[in-house]
């Protein structure tokens, strides 16, 4: 807006086409049948817009450097996305989102030098982009560290955290206002630092189970930052694309929170309340019943109906195909086998479906929670592989548990429950699971793949 350049009509029309492609892409990705084509449509829109930009006649100094950095960034993104294991995909998405927010913040920093104090509204949006982009950046980095388990997945409560957070929030707003009133470079640096700290403080108190919701929220925030940068740069496409993501991301965050039965407010404002529930790890030295792979094979072999509950532990052990082998073997023996998929099994809603599809598990054997829950009471054996929180009855009964209210798979209604676990360590949410101590529960300790292989071998001789 501070420059005389206006895009030619054909460029503006091309941006319009790109915007429509983005809308169609989002729409397509909302339905399983068309989802894949949605990616192609969205990528086409992005490619079109970027190519058009180079020929739009805008001033492009440093063209060689720009193309170089563009190529390097594209290669990094491509390689990271191709190489990542499907189990680690949620944190990669968090990271991609973070760098997007970082890019928006940096754009605004550069623009700040250009804008000067001439246009008040422009200055306000520039400052807003810096704040929101920085929060999305540092917040995403923390979620990455949590998911990658480079830091604890439990809520981190710092002493006086509530007051520190409020102080930083107030400081950020004050620095922002200061910048608008009296633009000064040191204030800009202060604003950057405070916004980054706020992003960290915002995500630290969030417990493991709520991390997906936070990623989705930060994704929406980056969208808003991009929209604001679109205003600053007078680029309508950035405004539209950013707003689309901001709006759809906000709704998606809400839908996810609902699927997990988590009140959104307690997730988001944990940083301010300072009351995010801790752990209720009482009596972890109580006796449990453990068994050998042979015992488990016999239990399964003489059942008439078996439900498999796969969890993140299965994916970590890369045991999806071994589980499928077990399922095939049981089916051959005339035993009814189903997979019970909790909406948030894995680390994100829908993550487990992706992981099992990768192991060629037929789609029709995957039963969603509402469909499978009435079946547990008529099931002989439930085999829980590397899942914990999604079958924890504390979600129904214990009001103090961080997962209270989350819909769970009712495995406790089955005749027998077998857990394949590495250890007695609690799940991602960091809370004890009462079913483990139930008399009808049997535990088989060990790496999921290892255990499953032994069970399969034993089952062949039964």
């Amino acid at each position, binding site marked *: 807006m501070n420059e005389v350049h206006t895009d030619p009509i054909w460029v503006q029309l091309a941006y319009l086409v790109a915007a429509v492609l983005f809308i169609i892409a989002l729409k397509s990705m909302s339905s399983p049948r068309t989802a894949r084509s949605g990616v192609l449509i969205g990528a086409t829109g992005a490619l079109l817009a970027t190519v058009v930009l180079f020929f739009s006649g805008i001033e492009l100094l440093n063209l060689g450097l720009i193309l170089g950095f563009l190529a390097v960034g594209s290669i990094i993104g491509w390689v990271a996305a191709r190489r990542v294991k499907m189990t680690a995909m949620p944190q990669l998405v968090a990271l991609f989102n973070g760098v997007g927010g970082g890019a928006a913040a940096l754009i605004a920093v550069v623009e700040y030098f250009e804008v000067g104090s001439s246009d008040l509204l422009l200055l306000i949006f520039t400052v807003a982009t810096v704040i929101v982009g920085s929060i999305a950046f540092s917040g995403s980095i923390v979620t990455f560290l949590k998911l990658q388990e480079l830091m604890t997945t439990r809520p981190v409560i710092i002493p006086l955290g509530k007051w520190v957070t409020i102080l930083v929030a107030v400081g950020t707003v004050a620095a922002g206002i200061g910048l608008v009133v009296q633009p000064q470079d040191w204030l800009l640096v202060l604003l950057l630092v405070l916004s980054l700290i706020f992003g960290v403080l915002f995500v630290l108190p969030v417990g493991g189970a709520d991390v997906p919701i936070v990623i989705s929220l930060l994704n929406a925030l980056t969208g808003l930052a991009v929209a604001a940068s679109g205003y600053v740069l*007078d680029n309508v496409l950035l405004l539209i694309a950013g707003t689309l993501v901001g709006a759809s991301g906000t709704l998606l965050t809400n839908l996810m929170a609902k699927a997990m039965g988590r009140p959104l407010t307690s997730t988001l404002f944990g940083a301010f309340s300072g009351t995010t529930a801790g752990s209720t790890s009482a009596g972890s030295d109580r006796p449990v019943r453990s068994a050998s792979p042979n015992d488990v094979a016999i239990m399964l072999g003489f059942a008439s109906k078996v439900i498999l509950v796969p969890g993140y532990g299965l994916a970590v052990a890369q045991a999806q195909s071994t589980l499928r082998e077990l399922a095939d073997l049981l089916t051959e023996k005339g035993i009814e086998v189903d997979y019970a998929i909790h909406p948030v099994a894995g680390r994100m809603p829908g993550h487990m479906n992706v992981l099992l599809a990768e192991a060629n598990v037929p789609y029709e054997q995957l039963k969603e929670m509402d469909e499978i829950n009435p079946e547990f009471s008529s099931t002989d054996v439930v085999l829980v592989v590397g899942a914990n929180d999604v079958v924890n009855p504390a979600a129904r009964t214990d009001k103090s548990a961080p997962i209270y209210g989350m819909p769970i798979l009712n495995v406790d209604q089955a005749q027998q429950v077998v857990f394949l676990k590495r250890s007695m360590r609690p799940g991602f949410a960091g809370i004890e699971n009462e079913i483990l101590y139930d008399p009808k529960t049997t535990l088989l300790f060990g790496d999921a793949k290892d255990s499953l292989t032994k069970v399969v071998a034993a089952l062949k001789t039964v």
Partner: protein
Amino acid sequence: MDGVALLTIFILSIFVGFEVVSKVSTVLHTPLMSGANAIHGVVVMGAIIVAGKATNALELSIALVAVLLGAINLVGGFVVTDRMLEMFKPKKPTGKEGGAA
């Protein structure tokens, strides 16, 4: 473009954004979030614009980092979303018969 026109576009985009994802099934939450994440990668255009008019070394360095980050977001976002959705396509016959003997 004048402020009111931009505001109009902004408000209408909010409604479209809400509308397009309102009927998504739980299974697609993750890929959809990832797809939306890729779309805001067009922020790389903004980075290119500011890098294109940067006149001193500091501005240029910051803008080029933004180009790098934006490109990672855009390309990585679409590729990883595609990998997720690849899993949902109907299986070829070979996948199903591989039962253990």
